[in-house]
């Protein structure tokens, strides 16, 4: 536990000693505003909720989270600090978890900093703040899933650009798997149950449900097990490839 905390602290502080933190937060908050107000037609919808805000999160995360996750392991490899890290008395799991949690907490902060949006909605109308809270929880869980994917893929390479691109593509597959674009590809020949299974892997459908205020256990389990799976894969990859 102490080791996870030490690694968490180092990683987390690391975001703020470089410009990464500020660039990421500013862009995240700014794009959220743009998307919600212009693309999401926030005002003209005439509804006191944040649906227009949350609707764009999967797309925002799709390229912002890989940018955050790509350095997690690729940089350790490139700088050879991975040798330093894994000759310290820690386990792979502690290192993977510490790094992941740091990145996740950082996304959490970026998310919290969108509070002016929440303030605006509350100023203009009388929204259901429970639904909004659910939206934030759902968004954070989805960010965690994107991050776990990104962290795992970052462990495969020492090149951050490659890590970024592959993470974004895998993320895209998860976002789109509920869309006809992907499902039509399978529905012609694959058994119905497989098509449904693929459809049920979609970030969008699970996230939509939560952000509408329906905190269904299945959606929570979906995201947490996805995070667990990718982090486990991350540990396995590091174990086998750390010295390469």
């Amino acid at each position, binding site marked *: 536990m102490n080791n996870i*905390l030490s690694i968490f602290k180092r990683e987390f502080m*690391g975001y703020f000693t*470089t410009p990464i933190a500020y660039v990421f937060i500013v862009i995240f908050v700014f794009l959220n505003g743009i998307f919600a107000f212009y693309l999401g037609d926030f005002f003209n919808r005439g509804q006191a909720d944040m649906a227009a805000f949350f609707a764009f999160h999967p797309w925002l995360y799709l390229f912002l989270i890989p940018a955050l996750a790509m350095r997690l392991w690729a940089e350790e490899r490139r700088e*050879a*600090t991975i*040798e*330093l890290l894994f000759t310290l*008395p820690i386990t792979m799991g502690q290192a993977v978890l510490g790094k992941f949690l740091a990145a996740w907490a950082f996304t959490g902060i970026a998310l919290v900093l969108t509070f002016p949006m929440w303030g605006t909605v509350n100023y203009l109308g009388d929204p259901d703040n429970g639904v909004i809270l659910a939206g934030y929880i759902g968004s954070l869980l989805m960010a965690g899933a994107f991050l776990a994917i990104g962290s795992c893929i970052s462990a495969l390479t020492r090149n951050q650009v490659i890590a970024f691109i592959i993470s974004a593509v895998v993320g895209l597959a998860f976002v789109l798997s509920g869309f006809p674009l992907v499902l039509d590809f399978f529905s012609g020949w694959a058994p119905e149950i497989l098509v449904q299974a693929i459809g049920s892997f979609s970030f969008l459908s699970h996230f939509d449900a939560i952000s509408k205020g329906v905190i269904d256990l299945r959606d929570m389990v979906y995201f947490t097990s996805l995070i667990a799976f990718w982090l486990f894969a991350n540990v396995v990859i590091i174990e086998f490839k750390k010295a390469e």
Partner: protein
Amino acid sequence: MDTLVSVNNLHKHFGAIKAVDDVSFRVNQGEVLGFLGPNGAGKTTTMRIITGFMAPDAGSVTLGGDDIVDAPVAAKRRVGYLPEGAPLYSDMTPAGFLDFVAGIRNLRGKEKNRRITDTIEKTNIQSVLGQPIETLSKGFKRRVGLAQAILHDPEILILDEPTDGLDPNQKHEVRTLIRGMATEKAIILSTHILEEVDSVCSRAIVISAGRLVGDGTPTELRARSRWHNAVTLSVRVDNGKEVQATLSNLPGVQSADLVSQKDGLARLVLYSTHGQSISTTVNQVVRERNWAVDELYVEQGRLDDVFRAMTSKLL
């Protein structure tokens, strides 16, 4: 003295290349083991296996009673390690970095402060504590790496080329630091600087193409040199060839080389057979013949010579 590091029949392949081929050795408390070998001989790979960064294909490593594969965390607690090139988190400051390492090394409160202060003093990095590591000179980076390795006062210290890239003063400082810690620890340091073996190591092993080819104290290793007990002699004569002919027939002298002959001064090197002492015999002949001797001294043997002989015959 306790055996702290025990390396048993280590093997490691990379594809078809045998990087480490049946290497075994032990290091006791109080010993400083010099790990010699040409570049690419397998020094770094062996060190990476000992410190648990790589798993061996076969063989085992025990560090103070803990097996590095079966009990990696316990074994790693006992070790301070400076990896090759001293990699560091370049965006951190030395102060932040040492704090991080202290956390992982389970140092807390007063003990932590004491250890950090002590280490900073020993490695002489006070002046750069607040600067990002990426802005430091090579010498300071190396010292921060060393600080990280000795922070928890480990019983075993493994240093991969600790003085590489340092200037002569810094080299001297690092060697003094290592010597100062030698009595209570088992230290392994890899190097290809042979003077380093003389100045800090109590024992040296030589590795070539993954195989262990030599193991002994610097004096023992030097005795294997063809220079061991060789005599260098300068005589004031015009015809050095005559001196050479006389001396090369002496018992115990394997051969005599006439190194130079100018301005009435002949300089010769007499190699001894099997390293036996020949200086007395040579001295006697010199006196009998009444040669005017400018210099006469006995060679101890040359480590670089032994090193070359050991590591090139396998190539």
